[in-house]
């Protein structure tokens, strides 16, 4: 059951707060109440900050009372994946090793959203260090899919997706290295955007695989994603990889909808291994988009079959390097009784990391090791070039590529934890955008066996605008994004 303020979109909340029809404090209280009622069943949150949130809400209310203009996200409650630093909160990354870690600075993405009037209610659960597709690799709790509680919410941003789907917040931040925004968005029936690599600052976000990582919003409509993305994107001097390209006011461009957008469908690639009901929802979505003015063309992306292999070599290699910093010396937990420094490193990491993180560190270390570097890591980086070229050729005849976001709806808790390769293979549609550095959007496109599935659109570099406007057109013509889970 959803009612009242917690059912509203981010844009609707902002409009009411700006009109002073409702105070930011009332909005925050309504969402905190809903979290208190629902989160014990769903376990989306790792930490809540009600006092911090109410204090910020009251400060915003008094600023609005004194006549200050309402910013773009005035009074919008948000949830933040526990890999981004937020002032006043620990950053655990879902890991025992960082259970008590308190950052010294805040993520630029969070600072930007809060400067625009958004209010952080809490930090959400995730697969440890963002490594996983189910949020089952969190060291702390198991988040449940609000549609069926014996199913995974997807991952690694599973807590953020579950929180938005269950109307505990209208907007959340996630990160996406191989699909970690889009896949949980799809499995929880909400919308999620991974911007172009370099489009938004990653300062204050714990790094997993630096050439693939990106931060982005999860929400219940393309419009809310557009409002959040316009705030998030843009250059930050603290992240040298963030682009100085100008950022459009995405929300203003949505009115054109899907009209005239050419969508490329890699039919042969999609036909392989997609569960039949998911494929049926995908084909219906394409017909809705056509009816809304888009045209569909066939495209070939011949190297996509190699994407998973390239992804798991590059991502793990970069992770093995990025996670070398967790050594039990400067921060994080430490194994107390190690006899010497070398054992201190090994035992701290051996006891602090969970099995999926260890598996990936080992794989990445292997891919970078002497004698194997050329055959695995370097070759995988070359395959990324082949995949990027496939997309460039496809974009000669289309404006975005459409595929299902995942081959099937949410699987059962525990179903894939014993078979890492099976878990990896389900990332087939999401990893290509990360490998090629492209923006990608997932939109809910209906139910398969009572569970949500997603439509994915992948765009040209820095062309989030086309994806969002096609998404808004799709959501104007359909009502899949308005379906709420039975919680």
């Amino acid at each position: 059951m959803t009612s009242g303020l917690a059912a509203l979109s981010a844009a609707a909340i902002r409009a009411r707060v700006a009109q002073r029809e409702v105070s930011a404090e009332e909005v925050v209280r309504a969402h905190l109440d809903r979290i208190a009622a629902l989160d014990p069943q769903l376990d989306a949150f790792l930490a809540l900050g009600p006092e911090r949130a109410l204090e910020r809400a009251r400060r915003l209310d008094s600023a609005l009372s004194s006549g200050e203009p309402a910013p773009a996200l005035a009074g919008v409650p948000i949830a933040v994946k526990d890999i981004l630093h937020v002032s006043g909160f620990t950053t655990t990354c879902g890991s025992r090793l960082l259970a008590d870690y308190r950052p010294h600075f805040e993520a630029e993405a969070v600072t930007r959203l809060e400067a625009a009037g958004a209010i952080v209610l809490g930090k959400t659960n995730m697969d440890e260090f963002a490594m996983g597709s189910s949020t089952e690799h969190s060291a702390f709790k198991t988040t449940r899919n609000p549609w069926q509680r014996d199913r995974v919410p997807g991952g690694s941003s599973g807590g953020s997706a579950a929180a938005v789907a269950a109307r505990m917040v209208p907007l959340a931040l996630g990160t996406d290295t191989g699909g970690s925004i889009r896949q949980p968005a799809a499995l929880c029936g909400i919308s999620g955007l991974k911007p172009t690599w370099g489009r938004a600052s990653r300062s204050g976000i714990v790094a997993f695989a630096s050439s693939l990582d990106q931060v982005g919003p999860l929400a219940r409509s393309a419009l809310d994603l557009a409002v959040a993305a316009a705030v998030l994107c843009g250059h930050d001097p603290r992240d040298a990889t963030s682009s100085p390209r100008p950022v459009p006011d995405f929300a203003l461009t949505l009115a054109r909808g899907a009209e005239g957008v050419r969508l490329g469908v890699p039919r042969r690639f999609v036909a392989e291994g997609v569960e039949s009901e998911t494929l049926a929802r995908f084909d219906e979505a394409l017909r809705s988009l056509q009816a809304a003015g888009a045209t569909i063309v066939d495209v070939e992306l011949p190297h996509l079959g190699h994407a998973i292999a390239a992804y798991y070599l590059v991502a793990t290699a970069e992770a093995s390097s990025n996670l070398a910093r967790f050594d039990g010396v400067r921060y994080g937990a430490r194994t107390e009784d190690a006899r010497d420094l070398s054992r201190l490193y090994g035992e701290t990491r051996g006891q602090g990391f969970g099995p999926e993180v260890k598996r990936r560190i080992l794989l990445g270390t292997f891919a970078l090791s002497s004698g194997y570097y050329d055959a695995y890591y370097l070759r995988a980086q070359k395959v990324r070039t082949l995949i990027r070229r496939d997309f460039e050729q496809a974009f000669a005849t289309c404006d975005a590529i459409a595929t299902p976001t995942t081959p099937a709806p949410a699987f059962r808790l525990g179903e894939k934890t014993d078979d890492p390769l099976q878990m990896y293979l389900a990332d087939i549609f999401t990893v290509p955008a990360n490998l090629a550095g492209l923006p990608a959007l997932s939109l809910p496109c209906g139910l398969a066996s009572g569970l949500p599935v997603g439509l994915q659109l992948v765009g040209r570099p820095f062309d989030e605008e086309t994806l969002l406007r096609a998404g808004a057109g799709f959501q104007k013509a359909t009502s899949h994004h308005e379906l709420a889970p039975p919680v």
Partner: protein
Amino acid sequence: MPRITEDSIDTVARLARLSLSPDERTRFARELEAIVAWADSLQALDTEDVPPLRLEAGSDALREDTPRQGLPREQALDQAPDHAEGLFRVPRILP
């Protein structure tokens, strides 16, 4: 020929500074060998004249080289499991 065995996983684990239990050693050797064998599909591609991917870097322009306050020493130390006299403290370095 398998590349990852229970013997060679010890070398990889040592490089990664990761101590493994006997069970983990057996399990990871088996799982990683399966993953690597599967990833060998990449070997069939001709990548002879293909450069590794370079994504558009953010800002090529150099910034001004102006001195700034770094992280104060007490903050740098306040998350450390052990510190003394303004320094990180670790166990003996030689085995």
